[in-house]
């Protein structure tokens, strides 16, 4: 086992909702107690429904926001306001929508060079250009695309540019926030292959955020299932898809449509919707929708148990 490149300890993020002139401020608990470790060359997938804190986690890990509690260590250096500049090059992010994340007024080359201009100002311009052109080939575009604008590319090509931009600083950790969910099926497989190739060649660690379980099953090594800002199950991929210990994971998997019409499976129907993260229920956050919930679940919050396949449930399977 190699040394983890990213170790997160109890990460917590909260946002304050202003109550206005007369109302009271309310606190949105977007992320609570996320702990995990990520090794080089591995992919850790984070799955869950909207509002479960996936994207908040991405923002905290990429140091766009500072967590209100908890800490994480990147490549041996604890992250904080002092080490921010130094660690910027270690972790980079690829966003979901390649139509919104590229500046339409910048040429492809400028987009790729901008991280270098900011983070390595001493680098000569010729060297920057050379690296940008190399990067184009690496992500499967052609060097002559250097002078084109984003609108001249298709969705898949744009996502390649976004991946290229993230790799310009030679990061060790790449946060992928729903990188393929805005793409068509035939393009999606191209980008997934690209990510697999890059990981093999550069030894990158991926934090792969997705709601699509079939993509996660394909690409991940380990999986964290989140519910209302909390990890409810953490396990190696094979174990998780083989046997789910938390009822929420079970429901999530059974709800995912399978592209096989001959399969008639028993679907677990969840009643109700996600509670708002402003008033998270006492006890287990999943208890109001859970079919196994008992009195204890509504009063006492279950913690993640120990082992390789961890679940936060009073009655795990």
């Amino acid at each position, binding site marked *: 086992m190699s040394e983890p490149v990213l170790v997160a300890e109890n990460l917590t993020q909260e946002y304050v909702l202003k109550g206005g002139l007369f109302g009271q401020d309310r606190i949105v608990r977007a992320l609570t107690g996320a702990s995990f470790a990520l090794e080089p060359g591995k992919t850790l997938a984070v799955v869950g429904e909207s509002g479960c804190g996936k994207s908040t986690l991405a923002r905290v890990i990429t140091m766009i926001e500072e967590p209100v509690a908890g800490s994480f260590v990147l490549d041996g250096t604890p992250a904080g306001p002092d080490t921010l500049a130094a660690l910027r090059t270690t972790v980079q992010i690829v966003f979901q929508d390649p139509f919104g994340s590229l500046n339409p007024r910048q040429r492809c080359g400028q987009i790729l060079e901008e991280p270098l201009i900011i983070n390595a100002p001493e680098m000569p311009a010729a060297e920057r250009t050379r690296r940008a052109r190399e990067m184009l080939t690496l992500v499967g575009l052609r060097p002559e695309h250097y002078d084109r604008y984003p609108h001249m590319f298709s969705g898949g090509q744009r996502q390649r540019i976004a991946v290229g931009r993230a790799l310009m600083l030679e990061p060790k950790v790449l946060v992928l926030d729903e990188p393929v969910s805005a793409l068509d099926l035939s393009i999606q497989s191209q980008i997934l292959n690209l990510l697999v190739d890059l990981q093999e060649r550069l030894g990158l660690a991926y934090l792969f955020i997705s709601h699509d379980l*079939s993509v996660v099953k394909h690409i991940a090594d380990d999986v964290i299932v989140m519910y209302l800002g909390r990890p409810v199950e953490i396990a190696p991929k094979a174990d998780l898809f083989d046997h789910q210990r938390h009822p929420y994971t079970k429901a999530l998997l059974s709800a995912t449509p399978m592209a096989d019409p001959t399969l008639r499976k028993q679907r677990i129907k969840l009643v109700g919707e*996600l509670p708002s993260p402003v008033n998270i229920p006492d006890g287990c956050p999943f208890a109001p929708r859970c079919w196994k919930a008992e009195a204890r679940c509504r009063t006492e919050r279950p913690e993640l148990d120990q082992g390789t396949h961890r679940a936060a449930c009073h009655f795990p399977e």
Partner: protein
Amino acid sequence: MSLLEVRNLSVDFATTSGSFRAVDGFDLTLNPGDITAIVGESGSGKSVAFLAMMGLLPWTATITSDAMTFDGHDLRAISPRERRKIVGKDMSMIFQEPMTSLNPCYTVGFQIKEALRIHLGMDRKARHARAVELFEQVGIPAAETRLSAFPHQMSGGMNQRVMIAMAIACKPKMLIADEPTTALDVTIQAQILELLKSLQEETGMALVLITHDMGVVAETAQQVSVQYAGQKCEQQEVTALFSRPHHPYTAALLAALPERATTKHLPTIPGVVPGQFDRPKGCLFSPRCSIATDLCGTTPPPVGGPEIGFARCHFPINVTAEQSA
């Protein structure tokens, strides 16, 4: 007689850079009670074909067809006034984004009652009772109070239920669901699909499901038609389509599904969907096809018979000897 009959429907858009054919020779026959899925990537013309039938396309669109009848009405010659009597009543549509399809200025109750007032001419009391009944039918809790809520006060799943309630308010004969679950989470998606299926069983309406999600298709539809760049390239019964696709595009699409992958690398379809200026002369899929020959690049392929799923291909795959005979 079939409920909907569409033959050779084509839609051209006049753009500043010339005309663009979004739908090319679309055929569809629907009988009451059918569940048909239309699958395709973005830009394959799946939504546009149905918007054309409903008359919801802007004036830049030119619609041509050999036949387009719905429930005895000829949709080509119908007057706008007559069309408005059908659209939203016998033929209704659920749009993709519930958040943007509802009017933020009115309560959801007002919006649902509007259809009842205009199409069915119910009085106030009957409208209210029917609206409550519809909300309960689509599984909105506390229906009575939710009627006076505005769209922004409800979640995406709830808004999508309101859209469905609105679409089925007048007991349509045909319901078109345009990507009804794309904006929703998987657990909510499962609830909505169950709901659509049970409503279809109850009312016996025809259901058209426009989607790009193969999983949704496999679990819901009976018939599947695959669209590529405006053309239908294959139509089959759902189990047959998944086990024996006849068009190379369908086969490639299925192979690209991550859940069917056997290795770390997925099979891909090289290239992109042709746009306005790079439409191939022959088969539209030929530049990306793994078995294309010179013939495919020059001659548009014929549409096959029902035994090979109407595959629009010179060299349909998975064909047995008796089928080709």
